[in-house]
């Protein structure tokens, strides 16, 4: 891939980011700033008796905050993601009378530096009276289990059904039926930069400024304003440089509220930087699903019924992303396939663990893993090529727009309006080297290919704002309501604006990630940067172009329809430059100038509305994996992706998203698991235990593109933030299952638990060897 982009210009943001000039939260140093550390629960489940800060205060703590010290303790964070089935259980901002997971914040300690704050936090005496911990979903659902919340009978936080057709009847008439169980382990988004904030309350103005590491600065602002009772216009949240998010920072948390309150109480700026140990406990987790599913299929391999149960371990509370994982993982259970009869019971189960929220894919990898592995089993049962089974079931272009029966995200229609899915499957098979034979390598390993399709739903949360302005020098500024965690929006939006307005990319400066820039915005999540954010920029720039041409028509005394703009200069229809530049128009419309109308001339604001559409993007992954059947160790030998991202605004950025996403998906499938013991103590509290893929394990990824333009948005883009991750686990596991036994089924149940442990692979190899 590197060679393809060898001559491509670097991204606008690269020089700052790569030469250490970015300003991340921990780079903010303010005069008189003090440091916060949290006292977090070491117990998974306990009643809290007395909390005594006396020793910490006596030893020099500037402030200790407990629930009792918060005048707003009756208020909780506002979730933007509701679902009618949710039994509300939002944690209080600090634990009041009970803690329900290891890492739950009990008190905040402020000191002159973080070292002291940690020393003093150890001196806060908390009287915990242990309650029986609920460590697994099975334990939570067992009769007589300790209850986490009074309104969660049986520890069920939410439950609902997805039903269409008659799955039971379809199963009865099916030519064949297969049932399996799938476990997607608990994982976390793990951005390189942990969360953190610097809160500075200005008592004179009653104004709060918070620099912080978040994906959703406007949502944070809303929470700070409402909980702390500060007018929203007096709250500024700045998140201009954020070192990765991947869903972990897509929501408000208590810590920024508490640091802000501490700043107000102390009259000093307060910094809190989450350390990695805290991050693994206190930042939301994700995945954590168990799917029991049965497929019924006809003699041709058409899946006619899907019946099952999806359990989601939501942890100790329904936090500020609601039950989005459960909604998406169930809503996408049929992916890009036509399955006419579905009955899926969804149960969100409470356990004494960190609350669950989103991580790259947000339910889609969890849905795709069972679906794509089941298709391989159907193929083996019917002795048909796995690709053929997919072609039999996948939605064809002539069937589009295809309305999937299942509501997604409790709202927008799941309407798959364009794309050539069969073509992608065929190209993946033709170009990857994919085959269904098993090879024996010189090393003694056996190698095989695995295939999986992944459908990415992009552009959820359908509004975003942008403002484009030309200044007196003809330079263009774009303000966006989005945020960036390094994805490259500054480059992409500059390109979009330059194209829509008719200026050079070098003349465009893009700013985002600061609530002071625009009154309204959402942020970077759900692969909405291009689908929603860039379309807002294009809308604003397009309007500005029309306005500029209207004024140019007046100045040049001609019909604006005969004019165009190129390189910042107004041109005739034939391309001949006129004497008028965008800077000239700005000058002519300044206050006091002839065309001044009482309003800034070359500035336009635009809010893009997706009109409740979702833009879908399909990709097909093919993985070649070698398995050492003596040890169970396996490695990825080759990896091919064909992806339809629609129009690629910046091909280099798109490639980076897809390859990075795939490596994330492969790593998650191979290594990453948050493990708890039977007392619900987190065993993987450091990166020596929570394993992340590193370069030597990552395969070289061959990436190909196809382009079909969606009709959902003017730019014709499909989101790309998560697609690389979605099918990776299924492709990998299908390859391992085939390498162990290409023809038969029955050995693979142990492979359907992610991450795929080599020990489980060895057990599957032995199971296959034992079969007659």
């Amino acid at each position, binding site marked *: 891939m590197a060679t393809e982009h060898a001559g491509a210009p670097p991204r606008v943001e690269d020089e700052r980011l790569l030469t250490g000039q970015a300003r991340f939260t921990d780079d903010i140093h303010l005069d008189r700033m003090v440091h916060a550390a949290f006292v977090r629960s070491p117990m998974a489940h306990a009643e809290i008796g007395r909390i005594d800060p006396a020793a910490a205060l006596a030893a020099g703590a500037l402030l200790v905050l407990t629930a009792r010290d918060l005048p707003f303790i009756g208020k909780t964070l506002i979730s933007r993601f509701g679902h009618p089935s949710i039994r509300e259980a939002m944690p209080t901002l600090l634990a009041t009378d009970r803690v329900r997971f290891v890492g739950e914040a009990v008190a905040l300690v402020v000191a002159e530096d*973080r070292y002291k704050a940690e020393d003093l936090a150890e001196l806060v005496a908390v009287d915990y009276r242990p309650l029986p911990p609920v460590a697994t979903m099975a334990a939570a659902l067992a009769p007589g289990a300790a209850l986490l919340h009074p309104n969660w009978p049986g520890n069920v936080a939410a439950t609902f059904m997805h039903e269409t057709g008659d799955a039971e009847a379809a199963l009865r008439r099916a030519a064949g039926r297969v049932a399996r169980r799938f476990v997607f382990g608990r994982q976390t988004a793990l951005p390189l930069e942990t969360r953190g904030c610097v809160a500075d309350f200005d008592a004179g103005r009653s104004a709060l400024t918070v620099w912080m590491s978040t994906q959703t600065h406007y949502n944070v602002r809303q929470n700070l304003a409402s909980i702390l009772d500060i007018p929203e216009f007096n709250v500024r949240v700045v998140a201009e440089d954020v070192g990765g998010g991947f869903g972990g920072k897509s929501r408000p948390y208590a810590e920024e509220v508490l640091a802000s309150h501490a700043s107000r109480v102390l009259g000093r700026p307060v910094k809190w930087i989450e350390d990695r140990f805290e991050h693994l406990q206190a930042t939301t987790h994700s995945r954590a699903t168990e799917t029991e599913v049965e497929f019924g299929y006809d003699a041709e391999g058409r899946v006619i019924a899907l019946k099952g149960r999806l359990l989601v371990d939501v942890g100790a509370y329904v936090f500020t992303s609601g039950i989005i994982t459960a909604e998406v993982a169930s809503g996408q259970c049929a992916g890009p396939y036509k399955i006419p009869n579905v009955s899926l019971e969804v149960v969100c189960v409470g356990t004494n663990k960190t609350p669950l929220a989103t991580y790259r894919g947000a339910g889609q990898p969890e849905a795709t893993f069972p679906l794509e592995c089941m298709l391989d089993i159907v193929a083996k049962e019917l002795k048909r090529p796995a690709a053929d089974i997919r072609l039999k079931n996948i939605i064809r272009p002539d069937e589009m727009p295809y309305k999937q029966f299942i509501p997604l995200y409790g709202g927008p229609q799941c309407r798959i309006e364009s794309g050539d899915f069969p073509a992608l499957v065929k190209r993946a098979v033709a170009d990857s080297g994919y085959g269904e034979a098993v090879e024996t390598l010189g090393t003694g390993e056996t190698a095989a290919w695995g295939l999986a399709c992944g459908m990415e739903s992009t552009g959820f949360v359908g509004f975003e704002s942008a403002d484009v302005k030309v200044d007196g020098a003809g330079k263009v500024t774009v303000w966006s309501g989005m945020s960036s965690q390094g994805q490259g929006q500054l480059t992409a939006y500059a390109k979009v604006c330059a194209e829509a307005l008719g200026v050079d990319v070098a003349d465009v400066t893009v700013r985002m990630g600061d609530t002071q820039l625009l009154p309204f915005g959402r942020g970077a999540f759900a692969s909405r940067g291009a689908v929603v954010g860039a379309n807002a920029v294009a809308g604003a720039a397009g309007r500005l172009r029309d306005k500029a041409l209207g004024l140019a028509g007046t100045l040049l005394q001609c019909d604006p329809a005969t004019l165009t703009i190129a390189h910042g200069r107004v041109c005739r229809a034939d391309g001949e430059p006129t004497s008028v530049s965008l800077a000239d128009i700005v000058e002519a419309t300044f206050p006091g100038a002839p065309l001044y109308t009482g309003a800034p001339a070359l500035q336009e604001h635009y809010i893009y509305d997706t009109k409740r559409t979702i833009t879908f993007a399909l990709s097909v992954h093919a993985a070649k994996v070698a398995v050492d059947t003596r*040890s169970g160790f396996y490695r990825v030998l080759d990896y091919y992706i064909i992806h339809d991202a629609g129009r690629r605004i910046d091909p280099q950025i798109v490639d980076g998203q897809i390859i990075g996403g795939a490596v994330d998906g492969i790593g998650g499938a191979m290594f990453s698991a948050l493990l708890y013991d039977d007392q619900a103590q987190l065993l993987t509290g450091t990166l020596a235990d929570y*394993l992340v893929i590193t370069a*030597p394990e990552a395969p070289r990824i061959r990436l190909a593109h196809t382009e079909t333009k969606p009709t959902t948005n003017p730019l014709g883009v499909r989101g790309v933030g998560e697609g690389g991750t979605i099918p990776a686990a299924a492709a990998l596991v299908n390859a391992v299952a085939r390498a162990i036994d290409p023809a038969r089924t029955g050995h693979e149940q142990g492979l359907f638990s992610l991450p795929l442990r080599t020990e489980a692979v060895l057990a599957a190899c032995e199971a296959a060897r034992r079969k007659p």
Partner: protein
Amino acid sequence: MKPARFEIHRPREIAEALDLLARHGESAKILAGGQSLVPLMNLRMASPAVVIDINRVAGLSGIRTSDGVIAIGAMTRQKLLLEDEAIARHAPLLARAMAHVGHVQTRSRGTVGGSLAHADPAAELPLAMVTLDAVLRIRSVRGTRAVPARGFFRDALTTTLEPDELLTEIELPVAPAGARVAFREYARRHGDFAIAAAAVQRAGDDARIAAGLGGVGVVPHLCAGLAEVAHSARRGRAELELLIGEQLKGIAPLSDHHASADYRRRLGVLALADCLEEVMQ
């Protein structure tokens, strides 16, 4: 993840370091490369009152070869073992093992002595030193002693070092001419501590075989009596694995979330069998 308060001393001479150790003993930790101690302190799993930083002590690093002995200073950075020609020539097994130790970043700071004194059950350097029958030079104000690596490791993270002692040098016999070596490791990721690792050196003509197994038990295990087993390598893989399995019966394998006890044992057998096959070829 900030360490608790501690006092730091930065001696420049060995004698000064030994005095500090004699004075602070139990409450002190030696800071070498810091690749284990510093994370433990940051997590407050270790909170030594005194840290004695020996990075500035003269004469503790470097590799010398004379009279059939390779002497490695305790503060020698691990990366040097991969780069040093004498190691490649005279202790090829050590060079092989080093390729599995951590990453460029950790090897650039991590020291040979630090890894041995820390005594992680799954670390490669202790395994290599036990297999190669290294001798560890240890000093204190009370005097100097030499301890064979094979008697140095007592338990997980526990050695025979007394609180006032400093490991100063490691001596290895030069590998005999024609020696064949093999090192195999199963780790979850490249550079991770081993789930199981095997080290084997076969000395030239007389077919003396030294074999060690790491990661499986709490300390590196020297597999005595493998010479006969090795000869059976020519009698078939299944038999070889069975015989090795017999040899390993005395080890109680570790079990944790990285690997179960049975799996560790299985991988240990595979790694040893592969190594033996390789050196017998």
